[in-house]
Structures are given as structure tokens and as C-alpha cells.
């Protein structure tokens, strides 16, 4: 996985609740067998007025000028401030790949759907959960402050706002370590090959029908 340590990034507010994975990356783009190239179709149905299809030239699209990501002042945003239950819906990791490919490295929301949360770490996208009031406050400041950048430091688990406010966030130790180091989880697990084999051997005794 990609490492995440620190980020000093422009923020963009998208304060809807229940932003689902179908909204993040609509299904017609899931036909790809690649991991990259999803960024142009991030939030496709909100971002463009015309219906999108795979392989289309982005220059032929009609961006919706009212959609926040299309506003000039938010170009190049790396931090997405969003509403509650972000990433609900399907398990498609394409949602994370689309955010990442677009350039978003961190999402700040009150809560996430479990599978999305899990998937984020695999691409080095940091999903930060803080309470609703804090998210609302950040979103409001972001809306009203040109060039609003947030400094995020995973090691110290802090977000620092342009006015110097410091917000702490929680993250479990295991995921934090993996992300800081950008560890290859599969390689790590395979170092425990013996433990997996031991487990299988004993399970074959107690529940042989599982190995039919």
C-alpha cells in the first residue's frame, strides 16, 4: 500500500450525508480491469450534465458549474470534507481508487461505511472520523476561507486548521502503522505462513467437511 504520513492540502466541502459508492464512481466505469484512470469519473453523475460512458474523452464532457468540485477555487483539492456515513453501499474499491486518482488523499467525515473505511487504507487514503460539529465547522470555514488548507499529521493524529486550531482524531494502532510505513500486507501475512498452515491442520481434524 501507499504510505501516508503528512499532508498539507487544499480542502473542499461536500456536505451531503450518505454519499454512496454509486455516487462516488457509477457502475458503468467498473467494467475496467485496471486500477487507475477512475479520477475523471469521480462523482460522475454530479459532476457532469451529460451521461458518461467508459473511454470517453473528458474534453467532450459538460461539467456542471454548480457542483463544488468544479469550482475554480477548489481545483487541486486533496482533502474532502463530507457528511455522515460516507462511502455506504457497495464494496467497490474503485470508489477509493477514483478519489485517489483524482488527487484526494484524505477524507474527513463524521462516520464511514465499514467496507469503504477498510478499503481506503489499501490505497493510502486516510479516512478521518471526527464528530459532526467539528466536521460542520471545518466545512463552514472551508466554504468561507479562500485557499483553505488543512495540515494533517498521521503520526500525531492531528488536523491543524489555517487559524491554528488543532483537532485530534482516533485511529487504531495497527492500521496507523501500516499506513505510516506503507506496508505490503500480503507480504507481512505470508511471513506467518506457518501459523496459517497450523490452523488449517487442526481445522482439518475438527471440521474436515470444510476441506472437501
Amino acid at each position, binding site marked *: 500500500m501507499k504510505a501516508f504520513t503528512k499532508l498539507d492540502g487544499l480542502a473542499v466541502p461536500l456536505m451531503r450525508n450518505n454519499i454512496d459508492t454509486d455516487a462516488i464512481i457509477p457502475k458503468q466505469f467498473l467494467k475496467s*480491469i485496471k486500477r487507475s484512470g477512475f479520477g475523471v469519473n469521480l462523482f460522475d*453523475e454530479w459532476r457532469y450534465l451529460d451521461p458518461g460512458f*467508459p473511454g470517453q474523452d473528458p474534453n467532450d464532457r459538460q461539467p456542471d458549474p454548480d457542483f463544488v468540485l468544479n469550482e475554480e477555487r477548489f481545483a487541486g483539492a486533496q482533502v474532502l470534507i463530507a457528511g455522515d456515513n460516507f462511502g455506504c453501499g457497495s464494496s467497490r474499491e474503485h470508489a477509493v481508487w477514483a478519489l485517489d486518482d483524482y488527487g484526494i488523499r484524505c477524507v474527513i467525515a463524521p462516520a464511514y*461505511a465499514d467496507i469503504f473505511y477498510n478499503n481506503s487504507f489499501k490505497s493510502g487514503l486516510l479516512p478521518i472520523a471526527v464528530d459532526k460539529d467539528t466536521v460542520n465547522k471545518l466545512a463552514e470555514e472551508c466554504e468561507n476561507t479562500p485557499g483553505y488548507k488543512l495540515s494533517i499529521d498521521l503520526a500525531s493524529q492531528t488536523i491543524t486548521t489555517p487559524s491554528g486550531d488543532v483537532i485530534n482524531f482516533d485511529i487504531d494502532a495497527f492500521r496507523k502503522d501500516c499506513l505510516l510505513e506503507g506496508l505490503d500486507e500480503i507480504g507481512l501475512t505470508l511471513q*506467518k505462513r506457518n501459523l*496459517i498452515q497450523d490452523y488449517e491442520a487442526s481445522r482439518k481434524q475438527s471440521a474436515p467437511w470444510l476441506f472437501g
Partner: protein
Amino acid sequence: MPGKTLYDKVWDAHVVHAEDADTVLLYIDRHLVHEVTSPQAFEGLQLAGRKPWRIDSMIAVADHNVPTTSRSEGIDDPVARLQIETLDKNCDHFEITEFKMSDLRQGIVHVIGPEQGATLPGMTVVCGDSHTSTHGAFGALAFGIGTSEVEHVMATQTLLQQKSKSLLISVDGETGPGVTAKDIVLAIIGEIGTAGGTGYTIEFGGDAIKALSMEGRMTVCNMSIEAGARAGMVGVDDTTINYIKGRPFAPTGEQWEAAVAAWRNLKSDDDAVHDKVVRLDAASIEPQVSWGTSPEMVTSVGGHVPNPDEIDNEAKSEGMKRALEYMDLQPNTPISDIKLDRVFIGSCTNSRIEDLRAAAEVIKDRQVADSVKQALIVPGSGLVKQQAESEGLDEIFTNAGFEWREPGCSMCLAMNADKLGEGERCASTSNRNFEGRQGKGGRTHLVSPAMAAAAAIAGHFVDVRNF
């Protein structure tokens, strides 16, 4: 010490190693694979020079992208075709069992696992698909994973997991006539909300759940994810065991006896403590219809579209307004006044034989309303289709004006040619009514198969109990 929940039991039996206080390495018994979320995982595996750890744990099928028109016509869409060919190629390369498009056993991944007896009680079951929760109906711990995790399971047969909390949803008493598993689960989501189960594994219990067939329990567990929970489970009983017996992948002989003895223990102990308990009165549940763009936006068929101005929570009221605008509905409209352009009966929620029988019972000797442009029935698998045809259900459907299709996900997510046009309104037996889910600008109302069938005949929603 208090007893164990069903979830504790299955979890504990699969811990290979505790990484730290929160994270364990969990062993995976069954890995279901489909064309959309696997190509990047196979690619990652091959780039790293790795092989699947246990090929016999894997079953693959293409379902999301397949056409539902005659199989002999092949796949028109070149991008979809490449994805399906990639799955075929990967499965051939690694010698993974795959039910190819021409195989009678092909179908929606969550329909075929149980149908083949490949989903067994006490298993851990994963798939790169959030509706893997369906398999929890068998007392299995089954949950959806992302593509990186698909690769992790392929390479190591394990996953790094944090245990969730346990939520017991007890549906007490008896449901009234005409009230189905779909209505139960929609009512549950209406009650606890789409994030109500976030961070939890749900156990569905109570007399109304015990009274359900396996098909019904699968419908309920299927939509656990719509309640925010990665997994939903039901304890094992005779219904479970009778369903599994004799299926192709089920154990036989002495192993069957040993397995059944072990499975009998797969229910929560009487003194087990759940982190949270929610109770619903089954008798109060009526046939449900969703009116918004989230499965929690649901009401009974006799109800009305709610009025956002009457809600004091501002964020919620705003969300409702946005949903009503998208759905083109006015507050206080009676549900039964909502007219449909299309009807879709299918998806891993409601495409099993029982669902088709329920629809057929309503449809028999009636005609799809002229105002309905299309009414589709898409069986969950080739075997479901064959069974339905042997019972003559296909004739009931086609005589009434329904289209009888080949199995697949179809209009549940509209990745293939089956989709709603801009602004079209659909009664659908699927599980998600998100904006654009069934086609850009399409409007989805979630209902049971019987309710969808009645809506197709009437042209608008009707209470199937008086139909």
C-alpha cells in the same frame, strides 16, 4: 462468564493469530469471485509471482455484466466482454471452479453459493461484493470485501480483521398474511436507519425470522449492508439443515452426520450478551415501499410520502427534500398514487424460486398494465430458471406480458443493457434505491416480489393483501 453469541462462535473458530488487541488474522473458508472486483486482484497476484493459497475454497462466476438476453447472442459491449473474458482466463489459468456463462449453474454469485451447498454453517465466506451478507442466513460469517482484500484472501486464505460489535434484531411474533421477508428487512432499515448497523454484525432472531424459509432468511441477511452492517446472521435450525442436505458441495455420509452435529451448536447461547438489542413487532409490519434515495426512506403501502417540513432535524429534512426532488414526488402523496414506468423482479435479494412463485401467484391470469413500458423477470440462476420453467411459471409471466430473461444482476445495478431511462420510475425487488443506481436519472422504489408483481398489473402501487 456469559455465553457466546453466534458471531463470537464463528469468529473464535477462525482466529489464526491475534496481531494486537484489536486486529486478528482471520481464516477464510469460502471465497466467491466475480468479474467486476477480481481482475485487479488477479493481476496483483500475478505481478507479485503469487498463487492462490487454496483453489478449492474458490468459486467464480460472472454475473454483474452479463447480458440477460439469449446467451447465444454473446456480449455486445466490448468492455464488459473483456472483463468476463478476463475472469474466464484467470480461472482457467489457476484452475479455479467457474460457472461460465453457458453453464446452467451460472447466476448471481449470492444465489449460486447457497444453491450449490457451497455456503455452509459456521463458515467464513467472503466475496468482493457487499451483499455477501446474504450467506449469513446459514449461520455463516459472510461479508463483502474490497479488491485489495480479495487479493489478500487469494494469496493467504486470511484477512486482517477487527471484530465488530454484536447487534441482535429480534422480530417477535408472527407477520400478517402478504407480509414477506423483504417487508421485514425494509421495516428494520426504516427503523434503525442505513447507518444503524455500522460497526456491528447483526444477528436476526425472533419467531418471525425462525418462521422464514432459507430463501426468506437470505433476503433479510442480504440487506444487512443496507442497514450499515457488513454481516448479518441467523442461527442454524432444521430449516437450515434441510435446505443444505443433498446439494452438490454439501458433505455426505459420515461427514454429513459430524457436520450436522457441529452445526446444531451454531446459535447464540441463551445467556449470550449482545452489545445492542432492537425489537420489532412482526404483526405491525405491513408491505413496504421505499419513496426516497436511501433504503431507510421507506413506508408502508398504505402510507404517504412524508413531508420534510414536519421533520425538526435539519440535516435529515434537507436530505429528504433532495430525495423528493430527485424522485419527483410531492409530500403527502399516497403511495398507491405512484405510477410506474417499469417493473424489475430479480437481484440477489429476490430472485430465488420462492420469489418467483410469489410473483406468479399474483400475476396468474392477469395482464401487465398498458402504461407500464417494461416488466422484467430475471431469475437468480440458470437452475432457478429451469425450476421455474418446470413449474410453468415462465408461461404465467410471458402470458401476462412480462419478459422472461437469462440470469444475472441485470437492472439491479444496470451495468448491462437493462436500465432505466432518465426520469423513469421503477418498482424493483432489488436492494438499493440510490440516485442513478438503475440508470442515470432513474427512480427506484424497493418492494417485495409480490408487491412488484401487483404494481405491474395495476400500473401503480397497490396493497397486495387486497389485490
